[in-house]
């Protein structure tokens, strides 16, 4: 495993995905982005990310289902839910980034993943 942890970002909004990529890179991660759960699942066949930031409202397979599948296939991955929805509607996760989040919050989540790794 390289020094820089790998982060997967799944968000159908390009702006949000790009924002997360920037924050995560500033926090010292390599970042892979996907705009749908289906695309993310394809990527996940080849990569083992240290953390995955998943948006809940996605076209096709929802963020909730994706998070549940990730928990099975990649138990070592820190699952982070990021959404504009009310936090009461979040599924069980390792960390949350309610939108709008700040760079500091993203950095804390990366820290959490590093400690776990």
């Amino acid at each position, binding site marked *: 495993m390289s020094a820089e942890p790998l982060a997967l970002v799944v968000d159908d909004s390009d702006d949000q995905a790009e924002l997360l990529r*920037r924050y995560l890179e500033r926090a010292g991660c390599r970042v892979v982005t996907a705009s749908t759960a289906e695309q993310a699942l394809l990527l996940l066949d080849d990569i083992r990310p240290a953390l995955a930031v998943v948006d809940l*409202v996605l076209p096709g397979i929802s963020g909730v289902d994706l998070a549940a599948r990730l928990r099975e296939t990649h138990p070592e991955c820190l699952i982070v839910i990021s959404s*504009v929805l009310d936090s*009461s509607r979040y599924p069980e996760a390792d960390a949350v980034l309610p939108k*709008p989040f700040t760079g500091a919050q993203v950095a804390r989540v990366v820290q959490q993943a590093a400690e776990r790794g």
Partner: protein
Amino acid sequence: MTRPSGGERDLWSRWYAVLDDPSPLVKQAPTVVVLAMAVVLTLTVPDLAFHPLATALAGILVVVTATALAAVLTFQKVDAGVAVLVIPMADILGLGLFRAGTGGAGSLFAGLILLPILWIAAAPGFRWVLVVAGLTAVALVIPFLSSPPASSSEWLRIIITPTVFSIAAAIINELSRVARIRTEEAEALAAERADALDENLRVVAKLQESEARYRELLEMFRSVWNATTAQAVVGTDRDGLVVLWNPGAAALLGYEDIDTEYAIRADRFFPRSVLDELGQGAPDAADDDPLAPGMRAAFNATDSGESFVRELELLRMNGTTVPVRLTVTSRVDGLGTPVGYLLVAIDETRAIEVARMKDEFVGMISHELRTPLSSILGYIELLRDDPQHPLTDEQLQFLAVAERNARRLLKLVGDLLFTAQVESGQFPLDTREIDLLSIVSASVESAMPVADAAGIALVGELPEGPVMLRADPVRIGQALDNLVSNAIKFTPRGGQVTVGVGLPAGEAVVTVRDTGLGIPPEELDRLFTRFFRASTATRNAVPGVGLGLNITKAIVTAHGGSMDVSSDEGVGTEFRMVLPRQQTP
């Protein structure tokens, strides 16, 4: 008194009246007729003659005068009293003179005098018998004024004839008295009967009138009953047997054209689960009760005076369910005795659909608004905190303005979403054991910079030690932030905002007191209404949309607490947030 009358009856009663209640002229008629016949006989029969003529003429004159008086009295409608009786009295004297003028004691016409005697004798009162006696005596004595009685038999005639006439008068007087009494009694009876008949007619008329009114009411009720198709109305007896139902019930429950009277029980319209839920906590019903316990519990609640209004599901005939708002009330008969129940159900399918669409809409809108706002805020931060490209102070200042406004929009979206959730009764509370004081002091602390900038002293007056209670820390913090930021907004520079915590038994009371503009008393009760803004707020151009207090109250209410406010315009306002608290032993 009015009696039914026809032309024929009129004619009869007119004749009857003439004889029943004869006028003086009618009573005088027999005397006049008989006298006229006597005159004619005297003139035509050779054996008879007027002697002396003057006396006979005087007698006729007296009778004619009396007849004239009778005519006058008749004309004046006087048909009783002494004045009338003067007529027969004059007749007696006149006929006495006539007798004297047609042969005196031997006259053929002595009997004529009986007619006026009968008249007088029939008058009420015994004194008239004496009058008859006196007058008869005088009348019969007249012939003897010129030639005094020659024999003892003539003397006896002077005495006996008036005596016989007087006795006859007395008998007639008595008979007519008895007859009069009988007549009066009969008349009284007849009047009574007539009154009773009239009363009966009035009662019948009244009955017809009230029957018409009843029919009208019945028709009105029937048309209203048949017109209520949007509500299902089912009437039952005390054991829940259906006794009537309206077209709305048939449509809602799907029992078309079925004779339901006393055939099915109302509990059939409820799914098992609903009946179980209704029956929960109710005392066990009697074993022989044919009604489901849940239904009986609902009826019992109605009997005890509670209003029974529930949102629940009813079972259709085809097995599907329909969401309704159900009201159960007691049904009484004409005497006010409870005889059963009325179940009124309103189909809520559409309302629920609308509420769901509204929820979806609000959720979609808030998602669509928050997503771009999140990007704006995120990219502003990226720009500001880029270590490789530091910004100038002025650029940082501009970005701060952009960020502040984006955050304001974000809060507004959050508030709108929250009130929508409150309205649909489904905002989530994450309650746990928390220290109220830490939330209050955090709220005061976070408002401090704003208070400083506004030149307002923000003071926290907090008791010692933790105040533990079960609450959602985020929501309570949100409610408190609203109160504190309101207080700061509505207080002019140089004023003071005091946040305190009081601990009466079983409660924790957070007070937020300001020395601000105050609220007019007539607006206090509308203060917690959504989008309501106090006139002091609009007049002084204090920013806001009128959601804060509505949200605060909803949060406090959801915690089982209450909000309270008192205010003096121009002096200040105090809001009290009362939260329930378990007593520490």
